[in-house]
């Protein structure tokens, strides 16, 4: 019995982990790297559900429940910071009342906070905030959580195939799926036999569905976020207002992420943000964080939310954050094929549970979900103990040669998300050549050069979208060092 899962984001890996724990063999097929799409490009918020309390109570309730479960099963990858919903000066208090009622109705933990306490806890906030509530928000270390999940899947005998895309689906005469054709980055194709197929390709889900069925309606929504170099707040700060652009600040390790925007798009690939987009997002912070324009900005990035919607008339903020499981047999497609769309990062586990429930029913077996109670295996030796005499290759993020060596198979791009090198203020200017040096063992200069340049481009796009203040200077310095010292000339 084998099930193929398409996509190695939170949902795909969550599904594969769930299947593994139910004793079903899995192969995950991912066109890029782990969390390369939506799952790696979010603000890191562990929702308490409060954001959706008024408009989307079902999603809110699910977020609240899953929040509690993730704190338990992903301990170590969740930072229980808590969060505040704060009402800026001159905003509509009618919404606050509505929100408080909805929160009480849903039973989401909440307590009103005195403004004195708020100022003490979050001095960066605007002095004229008029009301504040504490909620059990938190912060997810998304990459780490997914690496743990992948490790768990492999420990259970599953396979995760990165940089491999599904290019065809084989259906037996009676209409059941019997295999998928996959294509590696090098161009070779092969067949993987399977008894079931789950499509968790996020923004690409509809494209994947075209391989065996009609495409289904999706709403892709693009969100832009700004990254600041310091941890400016100790808890998540939400604007107490109907969901809108520029309404959340998440403290993430030593940085802070300000988000987001919401704009409909037809492109599943989140293109780089423009400087206009980031400046607009920045301007929305005035009534919450009046000094934000002076914070040390690092970069801007964007992600695409894959929302599912049968009707097409709504604005994407109003499309439910709830998820949908599609049984393709009911749409005239093959049997034992299921797609999962929509949802939130925080509800990935629940989505996986429901998708796998649907799949085991198709496979005619009984096996109950265990993910609610099984701890994700902690990562092995990836972060070694601090050594007194250690020398950091990446000084901004304190990544040593030993940490880099702990990922012998990883490309430079993969090392970035695994060790966090090049993520600090210099954005790789002073460390990329050092880290690259550790990867030259087999003397393949061409591959290394192309990995270096692709990481440069990736960092550069993010920096170029937030060119003001010291980041602008840093960008100019980086550009100069690359051209004057490292001779990395690229045609522009």
């Amino acid at each position, binding site marked *: 019995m084998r099930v193929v899962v398409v996509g190695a984001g939170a949902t795909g890996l969550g599904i594969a982990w769930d299947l593994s724990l139910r004793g079903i063999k899995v192969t995950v097929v991912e066109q890029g790297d782990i969390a390369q799409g939506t799952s790696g490009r979010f603000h890191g918020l562990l929702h308490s559900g409060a954001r959706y309390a008024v408009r989307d109570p079902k999603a809110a309730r699910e977020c609240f429940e899953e929040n509690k479960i993730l704190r338990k099963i992903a301990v170590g990858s969740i930072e229980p910071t808590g969060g505040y919903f704060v009402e800026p000066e001159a905003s509509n208090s009618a919404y606050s009342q509505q929100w408080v009622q909805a929160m009480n109705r849903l039973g989401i933990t909440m307590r009103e906070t005195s403004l004195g306490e708020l100022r003490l806890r979050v001095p960066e906030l605007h002095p004229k905030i008029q009301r504040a509530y504490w909620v059990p928000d938190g912060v997810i270390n998304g990459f780490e959580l997914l690496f743990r999940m992948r490790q768990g899947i492999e420990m259970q005998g599953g396979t995760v195939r990165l940089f491999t895309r599904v290019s065809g689906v084989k259906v037996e005469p009676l209409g059941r799926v019997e295999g998928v054709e996959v294509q590696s980055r090098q161009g070779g194709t092969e067949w993987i036999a399977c008894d079931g197929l789950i499509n968790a390709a996020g923004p690409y889900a509809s494209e994947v569905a075209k391989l065996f069925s009609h495409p289904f309606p999706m709403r892709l929504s693009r969100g832009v976020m700004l990254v600041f170099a310091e941890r400016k707040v100790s808890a998540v700060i939400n604007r107490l207002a109907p969901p809108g652009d520029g309404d959340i600040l998440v403290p993430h390790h030593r940085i802070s992420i300000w988000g987001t925007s919401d704009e409909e798009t037809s492109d599943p690939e989140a293109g780089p943000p423009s*400087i206009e987009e980031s*400046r607009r997002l*920045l301007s929305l912070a005035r009534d919450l964080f009046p000094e934000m*324009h*002076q914070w040390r900005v690092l970069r801007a990035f964007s992600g695409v939310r894959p929302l599912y919607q049968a009707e097409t008339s709504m604005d994407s903020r109003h499309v439910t954050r709830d998820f949908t499981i599609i049984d393709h047999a009911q749409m005239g497609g093959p049997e034992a094929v299921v797609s999962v769309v929509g949802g939130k990062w925080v509800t990935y586990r629940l989505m996986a549970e429901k998708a796998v429930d649907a799949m085991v029913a198709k496979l005619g077996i009984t096996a109950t979900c265990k993910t609610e109670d099984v701890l994700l295996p902690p990562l092995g030796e990836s972060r070694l103990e601090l050594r007194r*005499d*250690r*020398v950091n*290759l990446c000084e901004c993020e304190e990544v040593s040669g030993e940490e880099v060596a702990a990922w012998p198979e990883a490309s430079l791009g993969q090392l970035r998300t695994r060790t966090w090198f090049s993520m600090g203020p210099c954005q790789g200017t*002073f460390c990329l*050549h*050092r880290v*690259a*040096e550790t990867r*030259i*063992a087999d*003397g*393949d*200069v061409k591959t*290394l050069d192309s990995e270096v340049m692709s990481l440069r481009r990736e960092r550069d796009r993010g920096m*170029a979208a937030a*060119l*003001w*203040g010291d980041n*602008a*200077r840093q*960008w*100019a*310095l980086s*550009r*100069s*060092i*690359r*051209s*004057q*010292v*490292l*001779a*990395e*000339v690229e*045609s*522009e």
Partner: protein
Amino acid sequence: MRHVVIVGQGPSGLLAADWLSALGAAVTIVAASEGSLALWSGSFDFRNYDQDGSMVTDPWQWWAEPSHRTFAQAWELSDWKRWWTALLRSFKDIGLIVDLTLPRENRWIVAPTGRLRPTFWCPPWQWTLSSSEPNEPVTLVDVGSLLDTPINWLKARTRNESAWLTETVALRRPDAWRRHWSGLAWAAFLDQPAGADWLITESIQAREHMRLSGALVFPQVLGVATTERLIQRISDAVDRPVFEYALMPPAVGGIRIRERWRKSLKSRGVLFRPGHVVEVTDSGVRLGESAGRIAADEVVIATGGMVGGGLALNHEGILTNTATGERGFFSGELNALTSVGVGNRRSHGYVVGRMVGGSDPDRHGDGGAMNVWSVATAVQAIMGERAVNSWLSTREEGPG
């Protein structure tokens, strides 16, 4: 005597101080930080790349093309020749061993990762390759565990891709060595007699393992103060020419030039004053933090681009020159940024530096030329063309 205040002590600030003081001006340099010379190993570009990114072999020919004279006061090749010579003579005056003959063609310098980059002029310690003729084989020196020497990458590239022959010899670590030693720490070690002696002994040892007969090329760590002497000693000991290739900033090569230049300028009466200039007026400059004013007949603004910190961008995208207060809108293109500074007088002060006149030196490889051109233009405007011309002619004829 004309009193000139120069804001900034990067290459263009020091160059302006050198030429203006030589012409008889009283010069004060005011700088908020150490200047950008420490970022680079000291090469000066004339023009490395054409508009389409292709490499320029003969920069003289490139500048001779009328359509390439993009500046208000287009220079003839004879102007370039005079001013480049004046620059080299200034370097000679501060104690660099310089051949005053100007290069005919761009040569290649070698990046720490082994990539090649064209440049016009380099200090004598710099390892350069001919861009148009076959090159001699060389021996690369691996000074153990120097963080910023990607020696394996450099080796692999020279082995796989290059037309010249290389081999590598590794030096053992000295007893004093510590894991965190950067290029600068190595240079400080080698500046000491014990360090230099250790290096000579090691080089003689390493010689046993050298199969090639060409130059011996070190990473740029061969001292700050004693470089030429050290290079001569190694060269005598191993009986072959000795050079360096540049490392990442802080660059030992640039620090050598900066230290010698500052010392020489001080001995000629140039005053150095720390301070952050917040206002430039017709009567001089005002310093921040109530540090007072400095009166001047003329002000030269050499605060660099954003790198030097002279330009500030606010969150509205408004670019402000922190010295002049001049404002412009920054659209995200570096070209828009660079057009803020021009070589000519703008309300108060002359703006000089590599990013002037719409130039993008990172892309075009003309930063050295822009420094020379903008400083020369400011010097002519301040001191008068006649005085400058007669000074230049003595510079050309003077004892080599």
